[in-house]
């Protein structure tokens, strides 16, 4: 999970430095997420080929290791192309404790950032 910068740490002028997309957690846009059942997976790599966000993690031998949630937007292509039903799609609301109710951007609970000037 990223820890997005406070306003004081923002560079002036809407500036972004090079390769900044690497640090932007587009996974925060997800409303559903893929869950891999490693017992069913046969590492055919169809999901690895089709994933638009390069989120399928593999080891050197070409075996599927898991799914990186940092850039995964929950499009569901991996589950759709899986020939053995090893990937299921579940709503993000099942994982609230993991991401925090504010979507993981703020390091504190919702309501604790009200009223600062």
């Amino acid at each position: 999970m990223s820890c997005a910068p406070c306003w004081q740490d923002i560079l002036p002028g809407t500036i972004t430095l090079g390769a900044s997309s690497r640090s932007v957690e587009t996974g925060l846009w997800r409303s559903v997420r893929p869950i891999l059942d490693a017992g069913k997976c046969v590492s055919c790599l169809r999901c690895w080929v089709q994933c638009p966000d390069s989120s399928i993690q593999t080891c050197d031998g070409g075996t599927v290791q898991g799914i990186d949630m940092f850039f995964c937007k929950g499009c569901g292509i991996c589950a759709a192309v899986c020939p053995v039903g090893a990937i299921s799609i579940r709503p993000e609301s099942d994982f609230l404790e993991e991401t925090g109710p504010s979507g993981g951007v703020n390091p504190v609970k919702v309501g604790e950032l009200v009223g600062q000037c």
Partner: protein
Amino acid sequence: MGSAEAVLFEDKRLRREMTSGNMAFAEAMRQINPDVVAAYPITPSTEIPMKFAEFVANGLVDTEYITVESEHSAITACVGASVSGARVMTASSANGVALMHEIFPIAAAFRAPIVFGLVNRSLGAPVNINCDHSDSMPERDSGWIQIYCEDAQEVYDTALLSIRLAEHKDVLTPIFVCQDGFITSHCYEPVEFLSDEAVKEFVGLREAVYPLLDVDNPVSYGSFVTSEYYFEIKRNQIEGMNNAIRVDGEISGDLARLTGREYPPLDCYRTDDADYVAVIMSSATGVVKDVADELRARGIKAGCIRVRMFRPFPSKEISAALSGKKGVAVLDRSASPGGVSPLAAEVKSALYMSCRDGFVPVFEFIYGLGGRDLFPDDVKAVFEKLRAGNCGCGASYIGLRDKMGGGD
């Protein structure tokens, strides 16, 4: 003239000429010698790009002068040049300013320290070329600093100090240097100019923080951001505005050491012991000051506040200056149809938190739309209404032909 001042004239650190607000701004531009000017002429600011084009043609400046096909293109070119690291100036008025509107918040968010000669003129329709503040007021939330000058001397001085204020690392915010169309922009009056060397030394060179043309340290401006980042970026931008009054004080102090002229955010005239105060901006201030003098001679404690800096608005300063007054009249040169006039809204808002210490009645007056003059007798009538407590809760109009009389 004091002896110290005489020495300044003798060794040519100062010269005094008859000139106009437009010509004073153009002369400041010549001395500042900006890297880029992109402009499209419109009355009554036309003389600024016109005179500056002459300086360019005669080789008196090193500026890249970009002629464009519209005001929108002019300000867009200014923004591109400014984020590239250039020192940039331009000018416009009225509907030209309105056409630029889309780009103003972008310039402010890019922290592009453009210094802009805004010569106030009424917004059409109907078409009218004379002064009111209806062109600059719609830009009050665009993120630009707004300074309203009373006369040509102040236009010149403010152009110089605005370069440093806009480019200051704690501010990095573009500035509108506003003057009243025709009244200030075209009338001739004596103005003291610094020497070219003194100006060069005063404004220095721009040190851009993240210039787009620094290919060894590449950056992007204005990329798409989601809701996770936009809020913090805007708050970061607002901090530049929050620092502007402090930094303006420092830079005004530096300029005052060269010129002897000081420019606080509020110009308070005989307000300390005043019972009744009129608040106004720009060129009509002198009328109010004269009337205050006349009323003082008759034993009425009248005062005047000229708001010089409208963005950021000096709320604390005006609240302190007006606390305990028996009545305040705010004279606006623009209207906010369906709302409170811009200057009155700021003054009332500033006084709200201090109302526990005693209520100060504030009344709205709208004057001078489309260049209509404000006369001493108008201002006297305003003070009479204040003394009588005879003001409505909405806006009253000054000098308006009205079957029902003056205002509601």
